[in-house]
């Protein structure tokens, strides 16, 4: 895999995806083998909006590779509050670290930030844009449970604002998939995404539906996402619409016994807790896969940038902190 940065799942070829998933499987099978691989390497965590879970899993992944993290902290306590541009922030922090993870509320933030740094930058979500590391752990989970080729997947819920959905749908176009998108009309896939899916996916069939029922029995995987209250003008409308896209044991009576149910979590009431203990449920496994998959990504990107030998590779700028306008 030869990429300087990980910005969008669109940049990933099938071979890239397979490289990451294979590495994740190796690590999953024998985590001890990589326990010191990136000793002395430092990962910078730049989270401009809260995401405890994504941040924790990156931190865990880096530490399990023998490295460590430095964390910008919350936006309120940083120089960003004083009006510093993102371009300046990433240029300062790259001097301290071997790689950066960025979560930012603005679309295109990671693409722009990557133009200003030489260390690898991994996009951990840019507004309604992309979230490719989530995609890779989703793909890993799909591969483990259903396989990625000849796959029929239903993606249900908020397809308009759900970046995990967009990233996943792009990535799946690398495989032979039938993708069914199930949502209320007001939360359908944006036209940009539909445009791209048609551009990218020669072997991909794309269908949009307003109800799950007509496609449920054909699905290998049902990927459920949350429909947020704030997308609707009032509570009644929300309850009425969201209720149509919740599943329980009864819903799944029409499904294949082999169906795998996924969810990026946190869920509210999209998936009834009674499903948790069935063979359908893969969403906790999916959440756990965040660590081996992010370890695989960090390993690949750090190695490509020459900090993967386990030797002392502290950056030459590490002592630079007092020279610049350090984050307090």
């Amino acid at each position: 895999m030869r990429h300087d940065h990980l910005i969008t799942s669109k940049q990933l070829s099938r071979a890239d995806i397979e490289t990451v998933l294979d590495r994740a499987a190796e690590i999953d099978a024998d985590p001890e083998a990589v326990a010191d691989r990136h000793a002395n390497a430092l990962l910078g965590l730049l989270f401009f909006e809260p995401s405890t879970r994504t941040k924790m899993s990156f931190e865990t992944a880096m530490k399990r590779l023998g490295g460590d993290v430095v964390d910008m902290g919350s936006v309120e306590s940083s120089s960003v509050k004083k009006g510093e541009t993102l371009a300046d922030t990433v240029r300062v922090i790259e001097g301290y670290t071997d790689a950066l993870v960025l979560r930012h509320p603005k679309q295109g933030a990671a693409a722009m930030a990557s133009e200003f740094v030489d260390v690898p930058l991994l996009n951990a979500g840019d507004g309604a844009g992309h979230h490719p590391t989530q995609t890779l752990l989703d793909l890993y989970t799909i591969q483990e449970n259903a396989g990625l080729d000849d796959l029929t997947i239903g993606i249900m819920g908020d397809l308009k604002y759900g970046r995990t959905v967009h990233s996943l749908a792009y990535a799946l176009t690398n495989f032979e998939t039938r993708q069914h998108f199930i949502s209320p009309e007001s939360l359908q896939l944006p036209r940009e995404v539909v445009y791209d899916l048609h551009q990218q996916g020669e072997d991909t069939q794309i269908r949009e539906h307003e109800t799950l029922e007509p496609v449920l029995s054909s699905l290998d995987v049902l990927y459920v996402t949350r429909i947020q209250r704030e997308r609707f003008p009032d509570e009644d409308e929300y309850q009425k619409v969201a209720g149509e896209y919740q599943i329980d044991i009864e819903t799944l009576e029409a499904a294949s016994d082999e169906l795998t149910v996924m969810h990026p979590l946190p869920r509210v009431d999209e998936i009834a807790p009674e499903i948790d203990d069935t063979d359908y449920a893969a969403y906790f496994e999916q959440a756990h896969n965040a660590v081996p998959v992010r370890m695989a990504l960090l390993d690949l990107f750090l190695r490509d940038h020459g900090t993967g030998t386990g030797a002392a590779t502290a950056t030459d700028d590490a002592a630079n902190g007092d020279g610049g306008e350090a984050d307090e």
Partner: protein
Amino acid sequence: MVTEVRPMSDDHDHHDDNAAHELRVSKIQDGTVIDHVRGGQALNVLAILGIDGTNGEEVSVGMNVPSNRFARKDIVKVEGRELSQDEVDVLSLIAPDATINIVRDYEVVEKHRVERPEYVEGVLSCPNADCITTGDEPVTSRFEVLPGGVRCAYCETIVREEIAALIDTA
């Protein structure tokens, strides 16, 4: 400065490259004549080219000139400045049928069409308020040119209509 905004006759559509045409476009001595601009787009043409008169260029604009090819067309003449192909290609977004005449010493010495570039940089601003390029970041806007639209290279928003409204006049 826009020194002239008045209807002009449009002889040359009737007689291709004949004398009447040469005479009319040769009203400037040296510079560029942008012809066959869709009616009403002349001021957008100037805006997208970043020509606002502040550099002292002598600019003439004809709007809603009768034309054979369109019901009405606009025409823009810039004295003293030869626009390069790269500069004028951005016009394909708002005036895809425009023809570019380079004039030297009252003679049309080059005549070409605008071509769709792959990307346009720095001339449009993204309409997506959540796009990173709309803040204070030191970044030049960049749009991919698609068949029938443009797409922000950062947030990936596609704009198909009203591209002229995105012209960055700052």
